């Protein structure tokens, strides 16, 4: 497959750097919200999948990012780092990144998989309104076993809808290893049962992930109907911060840190002669400044959670 242009390769790199930096900042600054034990569900090491996909979408396309990596939405046209920081810090920038319907995000679901049918609703809407918008629904290997996912795929198949399902296979559904939850090695074969084109890709390989995403997005936009991508990655962090991880074999985490995607992509770009030490230094500083500015700016915004607003709209007293 053709290598993406240098501009795209560098944009993907910058987004990857930014995702790592903003995640660390958010984790540090949100600490007080979760209490001393943490509790955050972190997506470190899984960023390639949403970033590669977001860079293939338009402002009005719809995307559900896996809950671990929803902060990567800054990479999707229509959203900025400022919006992401504001959302994650519960500030109202006018664009709540996980719930900005005009830019294609329709919320998520803590009952895993339930959001899939909602995003199928966005795909149906595209066919009814005859827009060129497509939908990408990303969720983990754990969520992909849940019932709504299967209903989502059944309807998407029956109606040939413009939606791409992505299994962000990080090898653990909470504490249960993927081998214990599936009797197949290649999760993408589930697509065959729905008549979907399906393939598995190394979701830690930025260039491969970008190319696969591009291919599926183009096919989907051209009216090709639904498809399924299984993107292999690995969960470098515990299920939640504070999780003692008694289910992990010893040494596993250390092994996977050696394959973590940022340093891997960095090396790849340097080998290709696209990226220099100087570029790296410059980009890291640029991104750092952008994130710092976002954190400063959002301080001026009102807090999102406001029970007066909620009471105005609920029918609690009816």
């Amino acid at each position, binding site marked *: 497959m053709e290598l993406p242009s240098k501009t795209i390769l560098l944009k993907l790199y910058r987004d990857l750097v930014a995702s790592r930096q903003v995640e660390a900042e958010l984790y540090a600054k949100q600490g007080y919200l979760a209490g001393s034990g943490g509790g955050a569900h972190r997506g470190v090491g899984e960023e390639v999948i949403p970033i590669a996909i977001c860079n293939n979408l338009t402002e009005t396309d719809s995307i559900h990012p896996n809950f671990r990596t929803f902060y990567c939405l800054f990479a999707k046209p229509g959203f900025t780092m400022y919006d992401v920081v504001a959302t994650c810090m519960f500030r109202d920038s006018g664009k709540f990144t996980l719930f900005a319907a005009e830019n294609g995000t*329709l919320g998520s679901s803590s009952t895993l998989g339930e*959001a899939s049918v909602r995003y199928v609703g966005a795909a149906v809407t595209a066919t009814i309104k005859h827009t060129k918008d497509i939908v990408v629904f990303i969720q983990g290997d754990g969520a992909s076993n849940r019932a709504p996912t299967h209903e989502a795929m059944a309807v998407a198949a029956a109606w040939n809808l413009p939606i791409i399902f992505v299994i962000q296979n990080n090898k653990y559904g909470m504490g249960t290893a993927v081998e214990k939850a599936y009797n197949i090695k290649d999760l993408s074969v589930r697509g065959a049962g729905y008549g979907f084109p399906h393939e598995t890709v190394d979701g830690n390989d930025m260039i491969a992930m970008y190319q696969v995403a591009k291919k599926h997005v183009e096919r989907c936009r051209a009216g090709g109907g639904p498809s399924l991508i299984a993107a292999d990655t690995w969960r470098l962090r515990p299920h939640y911060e504070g999780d003692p991880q008694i289910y992990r074999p010893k040494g596993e985490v250390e092994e996977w840190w050696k394959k973590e995607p940022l340093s891997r992509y960095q090396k790849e770009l340097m080998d290709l002669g696209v990226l220099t030490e100087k570029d790296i230094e410059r980009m890291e500083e640029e991104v750092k400044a952008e994130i710092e500015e976002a954190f400063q700016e959002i301080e001026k915004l009102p807090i999102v959670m406001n029970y007066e607003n909620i009471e105005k709209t609920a029918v609690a007293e009816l």
Partner: protein
Amino acid sequence: MATVSYIEAINQALKEEMRRDERVVIWGEDLISMNGVFGQTRGIFEEFGGDRIKDTPICEQAIAGMAAGAALRGLRPIGVFMNAGFSLCAFDGLFLKLGCSGGMRWTDNLPVVMYGVISGLSDDNDHGMSPEALYMHAPYLKIVMPSNAYDAKGLMKAAIRDDRPVIFWDHAWCFFMGYKDGKIERTREAAAQEIPDEEYLIPFGKAAIKREGIDITLVTYSFQVHNALVAAYNLEKEGISVEVIDLRTLVPLDVETIVTSVRKTGRLLVLHEAMKRGGAAGEILWRVLEEAPDLVKSFKSPPRRVAAKNLPMIPVLRL
């Protein structure tokens, strides 16, 4: 004025709203292939085409969830479960998401109508149960349960124009029978009504006084309105004057009409087909007491409720 059956009234409401607003779409189980089983969706495919009406696979979670997604993307969907009981397959989407406002945020409009039919006591739990009390607990769901053709049309049109999620349960017995001359007649005529030719909407939260009385207030909704009217007719012969109130919508609840009536009669009886424990009657009584605590002293007899026993229906293993 034309005499219109309950089913025709629903069908008219759907078609009129679909003509008025091209964002109104409807999908669910067997809407085209079986006209929605009872005929509610007859002729919609022929008039509006396949973009506006769709037969889904038997996927209740998708019927509900897609409606939420499509509403957020600018449509005004009506999702149809064949039976109200089937909606429980989609309880997550209905209660936790639509019912708690789409997942996370409360400022977006969610103009969704979820429709289903309660088959009544002659059927099994899955088809026949009345699940309204389960949905009453959700902060964002409005709940509509009409008893007659006229109300069904006006309430359905209001439901489709509402910017918030509405649960709309019809009762299948209302399709085929109704109160007439002191008894329930199993004829389509008894289930039909005079409906004005001009457009009308019935606002939510406005109960209808179906019969005026001075001795006791009988509050009910859906098909039990017809049973209540039979009881009122029979009791009149014994010299007891019953005021029958049809709530039309459980959320919002027209507490004011009930309180006004009870101030007059001094007695309150709430009747519903759903099981008693945790049923709507308890909520209705408490809302009345909270609204008018002074009534406690003036009741001529303690308020009562009549509801189904807390037992499952006997399954009918018919072919």
